[in-house]
């Protein structure tokens, strides 16, 4: 596993997808891994449907502001294809590594027929062309297999662990997941984590 002295990670998605929790767990795991961590996020209105983004900044010194400047994301974890492309255009660069959930969440104007959601393959292909590496996973479908759509966030965390994009060991992730979830929910979330992890590991090999 590579070691970094500074790493900017963006977790992007749509309100209600559980990406805020995912970013918290990634940040806590990074602390376990010995990094100084700053997290900036836009939430507060619990309402769903808006674009939601968290900036997780790993550093050896804790002097960073909570927001990543344009073009300086090293890793983008996208919970939704279109949002991933949107964030990539602002924060990405040709060296950025991307993990993307392929399941679209349609904005209401698209549902209303006023706007068109771009073709999914075009989006994914387009992301791929503009970054160093892109790993895609249908985390939502995998989560529904486990039983609940919300655990897509743990599928994504597992997948992130599987990609090796961040210098955080699997045991660090598992430790913070265990700390976070009560007994009742732990098993389902761990299962989701491993499904995400294995799905990705098999494919990148």
């Amino acid at each position, binding site marked *: 596993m590579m070691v970094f002295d500074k790493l900017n990670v963006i977790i992007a998605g749509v309100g209600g997808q559980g990406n805020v929790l995912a970013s918290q767990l990634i940040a806590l795991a990074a602390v376990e891994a010995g990094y100084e961590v700053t997290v900036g996020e836009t939430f507060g209105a619990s309402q*769903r449907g808006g674009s939601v983004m968290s900036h997780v900044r790993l550093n050896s010194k804790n002097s960073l502001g909570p927001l990543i400047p344009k073009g300086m994301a090293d890793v983008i974890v996208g919970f939704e294809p279109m949002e991933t492309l949107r964030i990539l255009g602002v924060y990405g*660069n040709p060296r950025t590594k991307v993990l993307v959930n392929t399941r679209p969440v349609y904005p*209401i104007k698209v549902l209303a027929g006023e706007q068109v959601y771009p073709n999914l393959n075009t989006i994914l292909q387009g992301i791929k062309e503009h970054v160093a590496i892109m790993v895609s996973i249908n985390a939502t479908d995998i989560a529904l297999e486990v039983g609940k759509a919300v655990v897509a966030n743990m599928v994504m965390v597992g997948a992130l662990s599987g990609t090796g994009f961040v210098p955080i060991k699997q045991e660090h992730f598992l430790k913070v997941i265990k700390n976070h979830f009560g007994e009742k929910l732990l098993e389902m979330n761990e299962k989701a984590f491993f499904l995400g992890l294995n799905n990705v590991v098999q494919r990148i090999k």
Partner: protein
Amino acid sequence: MSIDSVKIEQPGKKVLLTGNEAIARGAIEAGMKYATSYPGSPSAEVLDVLAKVGNPFGIYAEWSTNEKVASEAAAAASFAGIRSMTIMKPDGLNVAIDFFTSLAYSGINAGMVVVLGDDPSAHSSIKEEDSRYLAKLSRLPILEPMNIQEAKDLTIKAFELSEFIGLPVVLRGVTRICHASGLVTLGDIEKAKAPVKAELKEKFLCQPLAHPELEQKVKKAALWAENNNTIEYSGPANAESIVIATGPCALYAKEALIELGLTDEIGVLRLKMSWPLPDKTLLGYLKGTKEVIFAEETDPFIEEGITSLVAYHGSEIGPIKFFGKRNEYVKGPMGAGIGELNTDILIDTLAEIKGIKRPDYSGSTASCVEHVCGSIPLRDRAFCAGCPHRASYWAIKAALSLDGNNGFVLGDIGCYAMGRGPTGYNMLSTVHSMGSGVGLANGFGTMQRFDFKQPVIAVVGDSTFYHAVIPALINAKHNSAKFLCVILDNSTTAMTGHQPHSGSVIDARGVDAPALSIEKIISGIEIPYTIADPYDVNDTIDVILAKLPEPGPKVLILRQECVLLKSKVGKNQKMYIDQTLCLGSKCGCGDLCSRAFNCPANINAPEQGKMIDQALCVGCGVCATLCPTHAIKLVEGS
């Protein structure tokens, strides 16, 4: 990041906390015992945390009915010798301001800290307001933490200052402090457990005679600032250019200077206290400086303070060129003084001032969106799938159309403020402050003599009802104002994260509490009311139609729990679409459920066609009621 970390009793340990958690921790370490708040983003979680972890430290924490009551209760604790804290957003300070301007005159006893969560860029607010002006108006000194560690440390300092001058002190957090996280080194909380005794021993009277004393206290606060390292400078000695920053803007400035390679040229002067200013120390730094760039959010508050200071001392310190909001060098995303700053903005600002080019990190990736698909749809905020507000607005919209008398809807803030946008069918004609829809309805409802004929509906949330609506309803009853007040009762304060309110069966700490029934209060005011289920759209439409023409004020309580609470419990019903009955794009001139009703769980996408998104659907069944061919059905036994 985790509430449990807030109560860890290991001084020196580093834990990851959010800004709000750090403020709560700071309060605990400072021996604060009495906390009150009405929920408001971005600072709502401070009280959440104090209520949940405060017990072992003997802390009393309550969700108050509104910010004025909250402030008064916290002041009482201070009067009685107990350190106290009250937490609010700028809108809350507006509500409480009458008390604070009076409190300044009476002064306080034990330390009292007012946590203000400003929301530059209004991420989760109805407007952006720089609360420092009102704080200054009330003579409350203002501390502004730069990062999470400081959110904790300055909270403790704020109590010291408060007791030193005998006035409450404001700790101003912004969204990027409150909702950001960072590592915090914990301090000692052992002594915070010591019992305290409350007793009123003095008088606290607001009277004009106290004004001179108050101004002395302000001077004392400035002196405190001089002596307590509230100014921090980093950068080259004798720099000709400096950035003067408050709060997280200091971090943005530092990073911007690094990215531009200007760290040897420009220094950053950070003010931890933005009012009153430590004039002497400041003048020391300004002497010899040629250029000053201001970095603060949102209004030019320190900019005004410092430029005015310099105007009095021009001859001592020589000419300085200022770059700020007044001359529009420092701009938020939508202009000077509008919206939050960030590293990017300061990179651009400093590059412009210094006449250099900003480095390009993005390369070709910057144009990926145009390259891949030209543009992508914006993502408007929307009511959640199954949100009772969507059904309520559908019913109101239908009823007003059917009634056919040009009726309109007055709203206020809360999740249901989204009724002003497409997700609420653009139904709201006015949105202002808490409860103001009902106040406005009082006005409209008493204009019959001016040939006013339109039916008036005011919508309010349940939490808002307790906060600000009751006086307006009393007014309506007494003056026979004709309107229908629709209380969208989702049994929680949903917008800010589901805090309990006066109608809840538990209090902030999760302890059983008497729940005040909305209908009993309304009965007490002798206004007729009806309760309906917004999911039963057709019944709701009928009730509204029946109520609109009745004289005087009327209340309709649309009661259905917030789906976010319900989905925590687990969804109870599953819906599906019978494809043999669904008319798809021929329905209602095209997809009634997805296009017109516009629930995000009714999807109609090229890949999937018409279907229920099981990841989003909560099984409320409203679309099944509306579907003209009854194609949307309940999965049997679900």
